[in-house]
């Protein structure tokens, strides 16, 4: 079973962060990069499919070539190769992103049985790319998948909807967009990392099309105070704690 997982490098931020001067982007001076947890789960799910059924996993990202660090980190837990659609690192709108991915998939010799996306990107949260890709390729799609089981080329997908769970079956090939929790990602091992360094990574530069939508401005929400308030250092703190527990309904 050949799986394609599409992932995106996003910033790793703390409780607050700064914006650049014209407030169109985040100031990345103090920030590192990471993958969002649900995309790590997507990779884990793909690796488990390979472990069960054989086949390969390919990772695909659209972004700055420095995304290699996140790609290699993920290849350390199993995926076989990677495709980087190289940009200058600036943000692409979901339609442009989807079109570039569609083109790349069409050029691939491998016909993927499963194409997995995170349900949305952790930074811009467009919820569009997976759906657009599925549509363009004429494939069925199940979104917001939290559980996956494949049998006889049919994927049984669990979706979380409010307090309920929905279960769908979809014949492969298909596109899935997943939530974190679909599979708890394993940690990369050192031998895994060493192997990952030698795995093939194809880099294809892609041209950014003229934007059809434009990000005008970002605004930071008012900063909430971080940290705890000390109720007391003495025994009377216990009474204060009881009052708070009552207030929030832990005690009646």
């Amino acid at each position: 079973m050949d799986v394609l997982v599409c992932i995106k490098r996003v910033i790793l931020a703390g409780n607050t962060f700064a914006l650049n001067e014209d407030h169109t982007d985040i100031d990345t001076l103090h920030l590192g990069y990471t993958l969002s947890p649900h995309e790590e789960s997507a990779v884990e799910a793909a690796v488990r499919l390979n472990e069960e059924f054989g086949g390969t996993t390919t990772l695909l990202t659209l972004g700055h070539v420095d995304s290699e660090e996140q790609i290699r980190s993920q290849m350390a837990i199993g995926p076989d190769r990677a495709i980087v659609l190289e940009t200058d690192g600036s943000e692409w709108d979901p339609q442009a992103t989807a079109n570039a991915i569609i083109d790349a998939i069409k050029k691939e010799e491998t016909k993927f049985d499963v194409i997995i996306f995170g349900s949305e990107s952790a930074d811009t949260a467009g919820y569009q790319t997976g759906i657009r890709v599925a549509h363009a390729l004429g494939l069925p799609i199940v979104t917001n998948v939290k559980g996956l089981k494949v049998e006889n080329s049919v994927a049984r997908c669990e979706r979380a909807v409010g307090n309920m769970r929905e279960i769908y079956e979809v014949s492969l090939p298909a596109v899935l967009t997943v939530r974190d929790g679909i599979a708890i990602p394993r940690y990369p091992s050192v031998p895994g990392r060493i192997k990952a360094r030698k795995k093939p990574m194809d880099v294809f530069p892609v041209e950014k099309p003229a934007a059809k939508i434009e990000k005008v401005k970002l605004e930071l929400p008012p900063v909430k105070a971080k940290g705890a308030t000390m109720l007391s250092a003495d025994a009377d703190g216990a009474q204060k704690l009881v009052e708070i527990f009552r207030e929030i309904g832990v005690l009646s």
Partner: protein
Amino acid sequence: MSAQSSQSSLPSRAKAVVIGGGIVGNSIVYHLARLGWRDLVQIDKGPFPNPGGSTGHASNFIFPTDHSKEMTHITLDSMKQYKELGVFTECGGFEVARTSERMQELHRRMSSAKSWGVNDSRIVTPAEVKELVPYIDETVILGAFYTPSVGVVDSVRGGTIMRERAQEMGALQSFGNTEVLSMKVENGRIKSVITDKGEIEADFVVIATGCWSPKLAAMAGASIPLTPAVHQMKDIGPVPRFKDAKGDIEHPIVRDMDTNMYERQHGSGLEVGSYAHRAILYTPEDLPSNAQAALSPTEFPFTQEDFDLQDEQALELMPEIVGDESVGEKYAINGILSLTPDGMPIVGETPEVKGLWSAAAVWVKEGPGVGKALAEWMVLGESEIDMHSSDIARFHEHQKATFHIKERTAEGFNKTYGIVHPAEQWSSNRDVRLSPYYEREKALGAVFFETVGWERPFWYESNKDLLAKFGDAVMPRTAEWDSRWWSPIINAEHLQMRESAALVDLTAFAIFDVTGPSALDVVQRAAVRQMDVAIGKVIYTPILSESGGFKSDLTIMRLAHDQFRVVTGGAHGMADKKWFSDLLPTDGSAQINDLTTAYTTLGIWGPNARKILSALTKDDLSHEGFPFGTCRIIEMGPLRVLASRISYVGDLGWELYVQMEQGAKLWDLVMDAGKPHGLIPAGIGVYGTTGRLEKSYRAYGAELETEYNVVEAGMQTAKLKAQEFVGKAAHLKHREEDPAAILCSLTVDDHTSKSGEKRYMLGREPILTPDGGIITDSHGRRSYVTSAGSAPSLGKHVLISYLPPQHAKIGEKLVVEYLGEHYPVTVASVSSTPLFDAKNERIMS
């Protein structure tokens, strides 16, 4: 009183404000309280107990041995304190060698362990390592330096206990989440600290804020030259072998020295740390706030590409664990720590602002020791452990430049576990301070060593022909280590000086004038020797701390009734200047003018020195007309030269001082006049080592430290001046009692190693009894080589060492340990009697 209770507000006044809630700040508040100070306020911009600095992510292990005595003593003291706090877990530690060069280095570490008092270390075989670290591939290593007393500490817990003790004494209020915005300085003295929670006036402010320290110092116009730098580490696990681990650590820590890495068990995991990657340096402004940081302000996202090679090296050494595919990386960071251009901490009162103190670039292994030393320094005026290598006053102007800090820390970082030769030279940021003779010296093939930025010739390739002239008397060395950063030409220059004369560039001297109506009082108070002398006298004097130990030794020329010129070594010159500045009266009746770069100095010594200079001047240079220990202006052609008849090399001669821009002229005049008399230029190898050691002259930082007194150093005079001076009470006491150790000169009897090669000690090696026993004096101080070098006129290799009285006897047979082997030595002179020309007939000729 609780930490950071949100009800209490910042007081408006304190005796001392300590900024920083890491291991250093906590240690300082505890020791200040213990020494009796009250009204202490501690603040940190982060929350207690882990405000987000480097303490919070430290690897927390401690190996006591360092080649620096000061560092080892501070570390040993810190270990003692951690144990007393109940936060020390002994686990043992190996420094393993992958190469034979490293094995030699481990033997050198053994020497340092013995010299500085680390008692339990030994060299072990790979099999012995395997026994305690069963997951190591012992075939990768050749052996190890094993120290059973190595341990790990809980530095956050230890710091918390110290802070709480100070609070329990009623001495301290601590405030977390309180950020310093600025500082007020009034008349050169710290006045107050302004925080986002209010202003606190204080007599003393201590900056103990690790990698943020430069930013805070700048608020008061002071400089703490360090840089935040990345140290990478990753934690892998769970390791099947450690699954039943009960404690934090049950196996010895392994330092893989040749790869600049370490591996330590951490509960069920293995922590792999590295100093091998490229130097990744930041500025304090790059560090995020607590709120902005994803993990903490000093834990940056891990950059795997910098660790790729380390993964493979860790795999080589510990394949069972690192090669296990089920063992995942749980946690990996680029941890921020503080690095300084010379690798030592930055401790003491800032020279720029009175009352503003620094305790920065201090790692967990040194934290409690530095805290204690700084508190002693603040409260008692000096610390028990001599901190001169860490003294913030040591920095010269160019060493505070960001460029210098970055270049040197980048170069030094990968030497964290490196094999650093005692004479090793920096390759970065050179040619910063050039004497007026630099081009001439370069043309003569000078090999330059750097001292506080100055490029100083150590020897001249142009003197190579002298090797043939003197033959085996130059005492050639065959072993690469012994002859690295050395040349037999030094010894040839020495012999030529003894035979005719040598010219030495001494531009690196630090020079400052003490002037004004109270100038005499100031120098009188600083110096042990009588300073109320005739104008034109040159006085060589010890400078003491209150406890009677050496703060410095230097010469002072009386140039006028109200003008004294202090000349001291460049390396320690800035600290000396601060020492004198601190003695200035507050009424402005004396001043200090730094003339270091206004004057250049050339030294000319040798039996022909008088003949050569006489060709250039009509002044009377006869022994009677220009007695030893005097100075005056003489005219030499177009120049008026301040000539001072003293000697640090044991021959007749003068130091010649002229204004910097006239230096080149002076050089040309003297060199031309010297040609017919066999004058050569000679390097600092002669001035600092061979000439000095033949005369048993002491050097500050080698023989002279606050841990030794004037009597032990053999520098007491028969009569003591009546006037007061710093350290007098202690000195009087020292004169009354028998010295616990006496400085002696020893010669090496046989240099032949087991392999048959002749070996030459380089200094800091332990002096042992003939059967290899450690020699310790009644104050617990070890006997070790303070200086080592050739004495070409004697054909001997000389070692200087303090010895307890029972061994300080001429003819006493002892041994020196060098790179794991013992060599027989004999005490050749006791106290200050020189080995060469004991009656000083040459100097007095």
